[in-house]
C-alpha cells in the first residue's frame, strides 16, 4: 500500500531546496510570495541561490545534507524542489528515509525529480507530487499553479484536456506513476526502477532527439514496462531535436507505433510538460483515466 503524506493546512511549512541544478534566488521569489499568500510558511535552504560556481546548486554533500535535513525536520510539511536539471541520481542512495517513513511529507517537483518520485514509490512506498517547481510561479496563479495548491491541500483533482487523433479510447482506474521519460529509462535496472504493471503511466520529455526517444521507448518496452499497463498518458515533448537525416516520424508517431499491440487506453498531448501547461499529478495515488476521441478526463479517486 502506498502511504499518502498528510495534506497541508494554513500555517504549515514548505521547505525549498535545490537537490540538482543551480538556481538563482530571484527566480524563486514569486513562488515564495505565492506560497506565503496562501498562508504557508516557507523555509529556504542554502542550496537556493548558493555560491556554487558550476552546474550543481552545491556539492553532493551539501545537497544531500540539506535534503536530508528537510526530510527529517518535523516542522517541514512539504519539500519543494527549486528546479530540476541533473543531480538527484548522484545523492539518492545516500539519503536516509527512516524518519521520513514515519513522518512522510510531500516531495514536489518534476524532470530530474523523477528520480525521487520513482524511488519514493518503489522503495519507500510513499506518494509524491509531480508538479511545477519554483520558477513556474512567476507568471501568476494560472490553473496549473492552482492545481499545485489544490493537490497539496488535499482537493481531489479533475483534469480534462482535448482529444487527439491518436488517442486509444477506454477507461482505467489505477495508481498513477511516471515522469520524465529520460529519467525513467535511465533508472531501469537500478533499485529505484518502477514496476508499471497495472499502473497508469505518464511520460513527458524535453530536448531529446527523436531517435533517442524511440530508443528509450524500446527500453521501456523491452524491460517489460509497457505491456501490462492499465493506461498511458502521453504528455508533451518539448524542444524536440532531429538528426541531420530526418528520423521521419514525430514523437507521437513513434509512441503510437510502439503501443499498437496493446489494448489499454492511451491519450496524447496531456498537459504535463516542461512548458507552462503542467498539471500537478500525485505519483502513487489512484486516478480514473477516461479517454474518448474528443476528450481526456483524469480524475483523482
Amino acid at each position: 500500500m502506498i502511504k499518502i503524506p498528510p495534506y497541508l493546512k494554513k500555517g504549515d511549512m514548505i521547505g525549498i531546496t535545490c537537490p540538482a541544478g543551480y538556481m538563482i534566488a530571484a527566480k524563486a521569489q514569486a513562488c515564495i510570495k505565492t506560497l506565503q499568500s496562501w498562508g504557508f510558511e516557507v523555509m529556504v535552504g542554502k542550496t537556493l541561490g548558493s555560491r556554487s560556481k558550476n552546474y550543481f546548486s552545491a556539492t553532493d554533500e551539501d545537497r544531500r545534507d540539506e535534503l536530508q535535513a528537510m526530510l527529517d525536520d518535523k516542522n517541514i510539511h512539504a519539500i519543494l524542489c527549486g528546479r530540476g536539471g541533473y543531480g538527484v541520481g548522484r545523492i539518492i542512495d545516500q539519503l536516509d528515509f527512516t524518519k521520513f517513513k514515519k513522518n512522510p511529507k510531500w516531495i514536489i517537483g518534476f524532470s530530474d525529480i523523477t528520480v525521487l518520485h520513482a524511488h519514493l514509490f518503489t522503495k519507500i512506498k510513499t506518494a509524491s507530487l509531480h508538479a511545477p517547481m519554483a520558477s513556474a510561479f512567476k507568471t501568476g496563479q494560472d490553473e496549473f499553479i492552482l492545481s499545485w495548491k489544490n493537490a497539496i491541500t488535499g482537493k481531489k483533482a479533475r483534469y480534462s484536456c482535448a482529444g487527439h487523433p491518436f488517442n486509444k479510447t477506454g477507461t482505467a482506474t489505477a495508481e498513477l506513476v511516471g515522469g520524465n521519460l529520460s529519467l525513467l529509462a535511465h533508472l531501469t535496472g537500478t533499485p529505484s526502477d518502477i514496476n508499471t504493471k497495472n499502473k497508469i503511466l505518464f511520460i513527458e520529455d524535453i530536448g531529446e532527439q527523436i531517435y533517442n526517444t524511440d530508443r528509450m521507448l524500446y527500453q521501456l518496452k523491452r524491460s517489460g514496462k509497457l505491456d501490462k499497463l492499465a493506461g498511458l498518458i502521453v504528455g508533451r515533448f518539448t524542444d524536440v531535436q532531429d538528426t541531420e537525416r530526418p528520423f521521419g516520424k514525430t514523437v507521437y508517431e513513434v509512441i503510437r507505433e510502439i503501443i499498437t499491440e496493446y489494448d489499454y487506453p492511451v491519450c496524447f498531448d496531456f498537459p504535463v510538460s516542461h512548458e507552462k501547461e503542467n498539471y500537478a499529478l500525485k505519483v502513487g495515488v489512484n486516478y480514473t483515466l477516461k479517454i474518448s476521441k474528443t476528450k481526456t478526463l483524469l480524475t483523482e479517486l
Partner: protein
Amino acid sequence: MKRKDFLTSIIPLAASMNAVANGKAAVSPDQPTTIPPYLKKGDTVGICCPAGYITAEDIQPALLKLNEWGFNIKAGDTIGKKDFTYGGTDEERVKDFQQMLDDKTIKAILCARGGYGAVRIIDRLDFKKFKYNPKWIIGFSDATVFHSHLNQNYRIASIHSKMCNSFPSDWSKAEPMQQETIESINKCLKGEKMKYLFTPNEKNKTGLASGELVGGNLKTLESLAGSKSDIQTTDKILFVEDTGEYLYSIDRMFWNLKRSGKLEKLKGLIIGGFKIKKDDAGEEFGKTLEEIVLEKVTEYNYPVCFDFPVGHQKNNFALKCGVLHTLGIFLNECRLTEA
C-alpha cells in the same frame, strides 16, 4: 540399467525446465563463450545495414579492402536502401540480417554502419541456426546491441570494430593509425591473438586482471538495462566509449552502471574515447571525465584505465567481445592482451 536410462532421460528435461522457469535464455551467463570459426582466404563476409543507411558507393572502400584480405563479399539487400535514417524498413532490415545469420556460406556479418536501429529489430531476429553455426558479427556504436545480446543470451563472441563507413576511400592517403585500425579487423577475423599497447594516463588505477572482455557504446549499454539484452559484467573486463554526450549525461550513465550493479564485480574497467559535448554556458558541469569515472570506482580495487584506443575516433582498434583478455595497467606501460 533401467534406472540409469531413466536418469539420463530426465536430466536434460529438468535443465530446460529450469531455464524456462527462470524466464531466461537457455544458455547460462556463466558458461564460457563460443568463439565462432575464424576466417580464411576465400571465405565470404556479408555486409548489411541493421541500423542507419549507407549507399552502395560508400561501402566500396570496405569491399576493396576485404577482397584484398582474400574474402568474398555478399552485400545484403539493405545496402543502398533508405527509409529515412534507416537502411530500409524494420522488416527489410530484419529480413536481410536474418538471411545473413542463416546463410551457412557467410562466415561473418559486417554491419555497414551504426546510427540507430538495431534494438528495433533484435527481438525479431531468430538466432536458432546461428547458435549452431555461429559466425562473427562485426561493428560498434549501435551494434553494441548485438555484442551485448549475443554475450548475454547465446554466449557467442563478436567483434567490436570500425565499420564500412570508416574504411578510407584512398588507402595510400590514410594515416598509419587509420590503416592499422582497419588492419586490426583482418587480424581479428583470421584468428590472430590481439595485443594492444597504449599510453598510460596519470589518472589510471594500476593493476593486473584477467577476464572476459565485454562492452561497447555507453549510451547503448544504458539503453539495454532491464531488457533481455542487458549485459552481466561480473568477473569481466568492461570497456566503454561514447560520442556527443554532455558530461552530466555521461555522469548519469555511469550512475546507471553503478546502481544496476555493473561496476561492483568487474575485473577491470577500460575507458575508451569520449567525444564530449561542450557544456552550455552557465551550466558548466565542473568535473572531468576522469573524475566522473574515478568517483564511481573508488571503493573497488580493480585496474581502471583511460584513453584506450576504442571509440568514435580514428584509433578504434578491433576488440573481441566475449573473449578472455589480460589487462595490465602499470605506471609506464598499459596493455590489453588476448589470452
